[in-house]
């Protein structure tokens, strides 16, 4: 047990030493990790923000249910009961025709003049329910269900536009996922290859290790630990850029991109997740890259 700790302790020390002794090679590996991780970070931030944007947009989709003009209080309650039974219901809100008239009257004097004499009997407006759904993709079905409720005259949900927007969102989301996955693979490939090149120049070291009786694990361990440190060092700059850079962008843009429609993801805890992810990718790829590269020169 003690022996194992000694071996691991030595390996950590040797990993540090060897990073400095092979300084130019370490710099090559670290900068490769840094650059690729910056690209990955950008892709992650972009796709997260897009995801956030579509989520907020989807939350805003509303079905407006206009009731018959002649409906009475009992009828309204019955419609409300039916709406409550909807499977896809997220929330709903009732707006009486009086309330709508009142709010319209506030917007302009013309409306005020026309509407001030309206009573509940001669108010031509319609009572409405504003219905929000859980799954926007099923908004059409839900709208049709509402249409069939007795006492409902018209249902509006932005037909046509909603479907088109959803299709666009879906495609862009898919494309972003593919880009992030592809980028991760490219990162892994690039880093592995760079480390392979640096380890190639240390073939002699591996050969001598074998000659003096190092087992395969003895040989792999220092390189894997070195890969871990390379990964951490390589993730350093991207992490700093994400934490300070994104927070600054968020503050400077007031949390929105050009218009209130595009809300940016709040930096906390978002930047910490991204940073953890970057460190994770750096460490895993660094260690795996080293292991794969070393194994090429071992007889397994």
């Amino acid at each position, binding site marked *: 047990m003690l*022996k*194992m700790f*000694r*071996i691991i302790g*030595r390996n950590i020390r040797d990993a540090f030493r060897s990073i400095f*002794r*092979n300084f130019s090679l370490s710099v090559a590996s670290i900068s490769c990790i840094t650059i690729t991780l910056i690209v990955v970070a950008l892709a992650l931030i972009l796709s997260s923000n897009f995801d956030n944007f579509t989520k907020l947009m989807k939350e805003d989709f509303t079905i407006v249910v206009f009731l018959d003009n002649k409906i009475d209080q009992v009828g309204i309650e019955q419609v409300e009961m039916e709406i409550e039974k909807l499977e896809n219901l997220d929330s709903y809100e009732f707006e009486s025709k009086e309330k709508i008239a009142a709010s319209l009257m506030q917007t302009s004097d013309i409306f005020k003049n026309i509407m001030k004499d309206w009573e509940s009997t001669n108010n031509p407006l319609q009572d409405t329910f504003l219905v929000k759904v859980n799954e926007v993709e099923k908004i059409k079905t839900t709208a049709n269900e509402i249409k069939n409720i007795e006492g409902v005259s018209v249902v509006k949900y932005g037909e046509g536009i909603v479907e088109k927007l959803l299709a666009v969102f879906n495609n862009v989301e898919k494309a972003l996922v593919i880009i992030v996955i592809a980028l991760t693979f490219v990162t892994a490939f690039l880093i592995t290859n760079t480390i392979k090149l640096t380890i190639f120049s240390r073939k*002699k*070291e591996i*050969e*001598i*290790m*074998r*000659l*003096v*009786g*190092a*087992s*395969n694990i*003895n040989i792999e361990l220092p390189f894997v630990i070195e890969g871990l440190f390379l990964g951490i060092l390589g993730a350093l700059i991207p992490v700093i850029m994400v934490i300070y850079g994104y927070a600054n962008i968020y503050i400077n843009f007031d949390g929105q991109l050009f218009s209130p429609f595009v809300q940016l993801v709040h930096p906390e805890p978002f930047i910490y997740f991204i940073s953890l992810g970057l460190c994770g990718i750096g460490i895993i790829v660094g260690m795996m890259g080293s292991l794969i590269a070393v194994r090429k020169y071992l*007889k*397994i």
Partner: protein
Amino acid sequence: MELIRIKGVDKQYNNGVTAIYDLNLKVKKGDFIFVIGASGSGKSTLIKLLYREEKPTKGQIIVGGIDVAKLKNNKVYKLRRKLGIVFQDFKLLPKLNVFENVAFALEMYGNPMSEVRNKTLKALELVGLKNKAKQYPDKLSGGEQQRVAIARAIVNGPKLLLCDEPTGNLDPDTSYEILKVLEVINNLGTTVIMATHDREMVNKFKKRVIVLDNGKLVKDYEKGSYVDAEDV
């Protein structure tokens, strides 16, 4: 006591060249053996078979109780820890100093720091380089570099020291010094097998001499009975 037994060994390389043909050999503990022969006679192959860099095509090789031919690749280290190897080109790590080059092997096995220090300094003292422990290999002469390599090979107290042309790059005086060091190591109980071209050294140091010719063992002179270089 027998340290090495080689029985009916053939070694054919993948390119079809047969480097060793029907080799039989027994080596006692504490022996000092010169393996001589022209280039391509199979000297290096014999050394490589002994430290399991190459596997025999046929036959049996036992080194210190380990059946070398049956040893799996990932178990080779078990054999290597029982022996030391010295090469013509020293194979030192240029970025480690003399002490670190010698301590390299011991550290990997997880020995305590104090033990690593003691054993390393002892090995360096034996080869006469204790005062150069902090130097880097490129600051040393060829003979000194080879002595560092020898110190590394014996630091773990191996039963067997294999040398593949250790004096091939060195002038006669330096070669003589290296042989002297090897003789001291041999006198301390380590079996030494050395492949060499160096007639002068073979003549000077009266040891057991094995002559290889085209992969065959053609002569086996007992200690002291080899007189001249006509076979080399």
